[in-house]
């Protein structure tokens, strides 16, 4: 009962704060700009921020998998072990991948483009629409993720995702990281290194790795802030959403595709 009261109280406070913010936003001549700064650790995320990414495929070097490796290490995917009875090909298909290295070939010209494909963090995510338990959800700050506490492993979201971004954990996981819990029977996908963002950092592991290798193909930041690096880059040059026809308003945009 106490919990319910607490929740109601918090909800009330949240609504009051929300009303105050709205009042500021609609005041004439006042622009609400959020600086590109991290949120305080102990506070809930808000929709003042929308995390997003720009991938410049033209800078993406053929054969480079620095972002994939960095992602695997950051999120404990490299700790997954192949079951004894699994064949290599089967394991390669089943091992969870948050970033897939995709090659696209223009059949008319023969031009090949490499690009990292991951969860596109849609504004209208099909995975959230189909989830029967609300495990697949979109956070206020635009990150689409899986609440493993609620995931029943039905894999509807994997079917619904146009980007093949989600993976299923088929086997018992022996080695886990505190920052990325993982267990058999749940679906997972890229969450923009949410543990970093929640703890005050403003970069993702893939972005850091790409910059470290000198490619700088990945720009990450707040799409709601016109002064953020990613917003400026998107404004300066044209970019595309993959499968823009689906009108999902993806948080990940591509250039040079």
């Amino acid at each position, binding site marked *: 009962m106490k*919990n319910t009261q607490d929740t109601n109280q918090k909800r009330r406070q949240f609504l009051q704060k929300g009303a105050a913010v709205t009042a500021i936003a609609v005041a004439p001549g006042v622009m609400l700009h959020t600086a590109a700064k991290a949120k305080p650790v102990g506070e809930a995320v808000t929709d003042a921020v929308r995390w997003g990414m720009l991938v410049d495929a033209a800078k993406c070097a053929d054969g480079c998998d620095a972002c994939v490796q960095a992602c695997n290490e950051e999120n404990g995917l490299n700790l997954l072990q192949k079951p004894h009875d699994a064949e290599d090909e089967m394991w390669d298909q089943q091992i969870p991948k948050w970033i897939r290295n995709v090659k696209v070939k223009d059949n008319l010209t023969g031009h090949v483009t490499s690009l990292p494909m991951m969860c596109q963090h849609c504004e209208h995510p099909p995975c959230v629409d189909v989830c029967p338990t609300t495990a697949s959800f979109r956070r206020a700050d635009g990150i689409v993720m899986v609440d493993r506490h609620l995931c029943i492993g039905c894999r509807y979201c994997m079917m619904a995702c146009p980007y093949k971004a989600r993976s299923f954990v088929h086997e018992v996981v022996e080695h886990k990281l505190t920052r990325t819990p993982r267990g058999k029977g749940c679906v997972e996908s890229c969450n923009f290194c949410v543990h970093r963002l929640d703890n005050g950092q403003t970069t993702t592991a893939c972005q850091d790795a790409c910059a470290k290798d000198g490619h700088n193909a990945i720009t990450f930041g707040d799409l709601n802030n016109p002064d953020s690096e990613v917003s400026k880059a998107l404004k300066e040059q044209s970019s595309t959403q993959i499968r823009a026809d689906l009108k999902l308003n993806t948080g990940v945009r591509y250039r040079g595709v």
Partner: protein
Amino acid sequence: MKVRAFEHGLLLALAVVLLAMAGVASADDKAGWKSGTSLAATQEQSCVRDAAFMRRNHMEVIKHARIDTVRKGVRGVDGSLSECIACHVNKDDKGAPIPVNQEGQFCAGCHQQVGVALDCYQCHATVPTH
């Protein structure tokens, strides 16, 4: 009426027997208590709530924190499971952390004793990592 009185008597007798059995059981429990403990618990360092409350309600505290953390991105909350583990994990002779769900350790000790499944560690790390 006689039947009703007989039923009452029977129930009373049953209650007395059950209470006696419970008494015996609790005495046995105390004798054979193999609850896991940890340095933090024995030193009675200040937990997020007092020990008596935590023994009965830790799951509620953790569950509340998990919703705030996963769905709202609030970190460093009271009842964060990683903080529980960071405090209550025991170290072996070489200083290496022993998983909290290992037999006799802080989490597993009690859960084995009372026969309650410990599901957290199907996904969560059992020693402090990154």
